[in-house]
């Protein structure tokens, strides 16, 4: 349970200067995600062109982990198709459970900065909040989840 490195540079950067934390006019999809126990609360907003996520943003309130994780996620999925995004969400979820392989973690790019969360059960919910919210928004139409 050593978490000395939890607040690493990637995470603190995305927390202090989130790139996607802003309003998004004319979003096609909007959904609130909440962790009632700890009070993390985000509104995720997406623009779609057919199956492709063309833009995204979030607003909200919560701990550094929930906020940075949502920001990192948007950077990763914007420009991808819904089914690609679903695949990444799945990978991320498995990384958080400590079940993802090396290459998978690599494919998650900056999101791999959150991999130590797998040793911190109390913070898992914060890390996955954005991802689960995204999954709810696009999941049912996401197609080939394999």
């Amino acid at each position, binding site marked *: 349970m050593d*978490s*000395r490195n*939890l*607040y690493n*540079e990637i995470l*603190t*950067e995305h*927390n*202090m200067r989130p790139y996607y934390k802003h309003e998004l006019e004319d979003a096609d999809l909007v959904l609130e995600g909440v962790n009632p126990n*700890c*009070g993390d609360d985000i509104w995720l907003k997406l623009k779609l062109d057919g199956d492709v996520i063309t833009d995204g943003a979030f607003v909200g*309130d*919560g*701990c*550094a*982990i929930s906020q940075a994780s949502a920001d990192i996620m948007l950077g990763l999925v914007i420009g991808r198709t819904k089914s690609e995004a679903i695949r990444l969400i799945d990978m991320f979820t498995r990384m958080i459970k400590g079940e993802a392989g090396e290459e998978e973690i690599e494919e998650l790019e900056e999101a791999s900065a959150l991999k130590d969360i797998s040793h911190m059960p109390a*913070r898992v919910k*914060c890390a996955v909040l954005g991802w689960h919210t995204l999954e709810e928004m696009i999941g049912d139409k996401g197609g080939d989840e394999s």
Partner: protein
Amino acid sequence: MSAENTNVRTNEDIRNDFVLIAQNEYAYLDNAATSQKPVCVIEAEKRFYTDMNANPMRGFYPLSLEATKAYEDARSCVANFIGASCPEEIVFTRNATESINLVAYSWGLNNIRACDEIAVSVSEHHSNMLPWQMVAKATGAKLNYIECKSDGSYSDEELERAINSRTKLVAITHVSNVLGRRNPIEKITEMAHSFGALVLVDASQSIPHMKIDVQKLGADFLAFSGHKLLAPMGIGALYGRKSLLEDMPPFLTGGEMIESVRLDGATYAEVPHKFEAGTVNAAGAYALSEAIRYINSIGYEYIKERDRVLTAKAIEALRKTEHVRILGSEDPYDHNGIISFTIDNVHPHDISEVLAQDKVCIRAGHHCAQPLMEHLKIGSCARASIMFYNSEDEVERFIESVASVRRRLGWA
């Protein structure tokens, strides 16, 4: 154990009474959530099981008689400790939450009507708020929230507005679990009684820090948990004036609380047994009485002094730390060991996480007091809470760790 006389024991002597504390690994500053337990309390519970374990109340053999005696002696011990007139005024429960629910269900639902008001302070712990929301909803009565100022104090005007001729009950905490401030219970009970209203005092946070005297407070009901008072989990108490308890119907029903049962109904035992359905937690009550004996041997003089010294040290240092904001009164003496704070741009959960990395144990969140958080216009806060066994060293570890939080989150 050092063989010196009482009250010349040093902080280190006292720390050695607590296994987790003596190890010095964690700086345990989450005492308002639950206290650590001295060896004598843990041993008392063990002793119950190895020396007199039997179901109390109904057996004629020596073990059962001893278990019964241990349990009823514990009741007398609690009664003496808080100044009750007689042991029958003490009902053993699981925790303060259950004590309050018992009053809400048994007294509240049967005595409060649609035209009545229940006055509840906005700074209550959820455990002293939700049961009254339930009663208000079930009876149609109005919940009248008493609003505090940002330092946690109440203006006379506010008290006079909230406690009036329609008030049937005032539910108020003795010490707030967020602000640490002691509420003016004597004044409130006097006001309430002048309107014929009753007062339930939540002593969960006060009883570990100050002598409770239900007569001086004027409390009609008083609730607390053992686990915050050095006792094991799973035991708590409700004080109720005997005449009130006698008039109340039972709450939970079952074994041990009846006089006789027929297929068409039952007659109930006398108070307090009427309220103690099923096999009691005799071992827990016995251990609670040992905890009280330990507290008495330490003495509230000493406890208050330690609270004052350590709280002042922490508050002074935090005040000098940039970007830290302390909630509640300016005066450390008003905090009863509770120091709630925020750090600019840092979520309280991240504060607590960083401190955990330094093995400093504090709590962060809404502290089961969401309405107070809203009233104070914050979502959550971090809270350190001190007990007499804490050391200057632990407070220093806390201060240093807090001072490092912003840097470690990148706000260099």
